[in-house]
C-alpha cells in the first residue's frame, strides 16, 4: 500500500455533472457493471438533443438498472416492479409535450412488465424505452431471467437454464415498436446516437443494450467483465436493417447488433388528438 489520497480541495467537474445528482455518486452499481455506461450514454444523448431539460422525464421500474432514475437530475420516477411503462404512458398521454424515457432492465420490462411492453408498442406510445439487458436479475442476486441464455447458470437454475430466452428486438418489432435497435456498452457512440435518435423521433422506440453483470451473472458463467466486453467486441456483427428474427443472442454464432427497425407510424397521442380534439376554429 502506498498512500491513501488526501481529500481533494475541490471536486473536479465531469462534463455530465449538470445532469447527475452528484450528491448521490458513487452510485450503487457494482464494479464492472455496464449500467453506468448505458446511463452515461443516455445522459449524453439527452444533452445532444439540445431540448430544454425540463421537457424530459425519466421513469423506471425496479431493479439495478431502474436505479438510474435516482441519479438523473431531471424529473424522475422510480416506480413499482414492471410498471414503468404504464406509469410513463400516463405521463405521456396527460402531457404529450414531454419527452418520456423509460430506463429499466430486462427482468423489469420483459418478465413482470412484459404485458405493458407489448401494449405500449402496439399503441406506438411515444416513449423511448432503454432496456439494459444483463441476462439476469442482478439486484436480487442473479436469478434466472426471461433473457438468460439456455443452459446458463443462475441461482435458480444451478444446473443450467432449461428455457429459451426472449429475442427482445423481435418481440418489440412484432408488437409494433417503430424503432428497434440493439447495441452493447462497447459501441457507446452508436448507442448514444441511437438514444438520441429515439428521443428526437416520435413513436415507441426500443433500444436493447447488452451489458455485463460480472458479479451475479459473469461469476456463475465463467465470464470476467473484460471477457464479456471481449465477446461484445469479437462476437457481435453490426448489421443495420437486419431482420430482428435473426437477432437471437448466441455468442457462439455471433450476435447481430445495430439499428433494426425505423419506421414512421402515427403515435397514440397523435391519434387521440386527431380523433378527440377538433380544431378550435370549428
Amino acid at each position, binding site marked *: 500500500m*502506498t498512500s491513501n*489520497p488526501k481529500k481533494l480541495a475541490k471536486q473536479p467537474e465531469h462534463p*455530465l455533472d449538470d445532469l447527475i445528482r452528484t450528491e448521490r455518486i*458513487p452510485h450503487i452499481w457494482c464494479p464492472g457493471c455496464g*449500467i*453506468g*455506461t448505458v*446511463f*452515461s*450514454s443516455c445522459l449524453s444523448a439527452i444533452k445532444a438533443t439540445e431540448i430544454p431539460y425540463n421537457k424530459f422525464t425519466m421513469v423506471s421500474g425496479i431493479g439495478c438498472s431502474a436505479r438510474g432514475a435516482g441519479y438523473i437530475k431531471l424529473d424522475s420516477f422510480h416506480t413499482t416492479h414492471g410498471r414503468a411503462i404504464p406509469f410513463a404512458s400516463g405521463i405521456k398521454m396527460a402531457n404529450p409535450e414531454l419527452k418520456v424515457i423509460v430506463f429499466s432492465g430486462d427482468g423489469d420490462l420483459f418478465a413482470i412488465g412484459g404485458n405493458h411492453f407489448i401494449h405500449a408498442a402496439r399503441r406506438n406510445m411515444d416513449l423511448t424505452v432503454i432496456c439494459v439487458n444483463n441476462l439476469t436479475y442482478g439486484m436480487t442476486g442473479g436469478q434466472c431471467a426471461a433473457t438468460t441464455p439456455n443452459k446458463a447458470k443462475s441461482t435458480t437454475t444451478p444446473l443450467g437454464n432449461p428455457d429459451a430466452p426472449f429475442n427482445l428486438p423481435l418481440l418489440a418489432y412484432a408488437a409494433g415498436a417503430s424503432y428497434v435497435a440493439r447495441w452493447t456498452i462497447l459501441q457507446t457512440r452508436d448507442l448514444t446516437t441511437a438514444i438520441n435518435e429515439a428521443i428526437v423521433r416520435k413513436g415507441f422506440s426500443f433500444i436493447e443494450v447488452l451489458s455485463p453483470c460480472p458479479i451475479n451473472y459473469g461469476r456463475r458463467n465463467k465470464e470476467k467483465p473484460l471477457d464479456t466486453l471481449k465477446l461484445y467486441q469479437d462476437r457481435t456483427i453490426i448489421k443495420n436493417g437486419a431482420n430482428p428474427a435473426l437477432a437471437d443472442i448466441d455468442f457462439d454464432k455471433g450476435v447481430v447488433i445495430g439499428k433494426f427497425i425505423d419506421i414512421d407510424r402515427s403515435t397514440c397521442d397523435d391519434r387521440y388528438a386527431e380523433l378527440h380534439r377538433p380544431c378550435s376554429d370549428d
Partner: protein
Amino acid sequence: MAFWRTPLDAQEIQVTRGTVCIIDDRCKGCGYCIAFCPKDILQFSDKFNRKGYHPPTVTKPGECVNCHYCEIICPEFAIYSVETDSAAASK
C-alpha cells in the same frame, strides 16, 4: 497510431491532443478505460481511493488524442478528457 499504409496527407492532419482528468474517488476499478484506450496510455495506479479501489493513472500524458472513449465507457463518471490547448501543448 500505426498505419498499414501511410496516408498521403499524414503530414497535414493535425492530431488533437487531450488531457485526461480522473476523479479518483468515483472510480470502482473496473479497468474498462485502461483496456479500451486506443493509445494505451492508462494503467492502474498504486494508490487507493476512498473506497479502496485503484483508480487509473495516465502513463503517457502527451499521447492522449482526446477521443473521449474512456469518458464514455466509464460507468462511474470518473474519467474524462479535455482538448489540450495546442499552444500550451507545443510548449
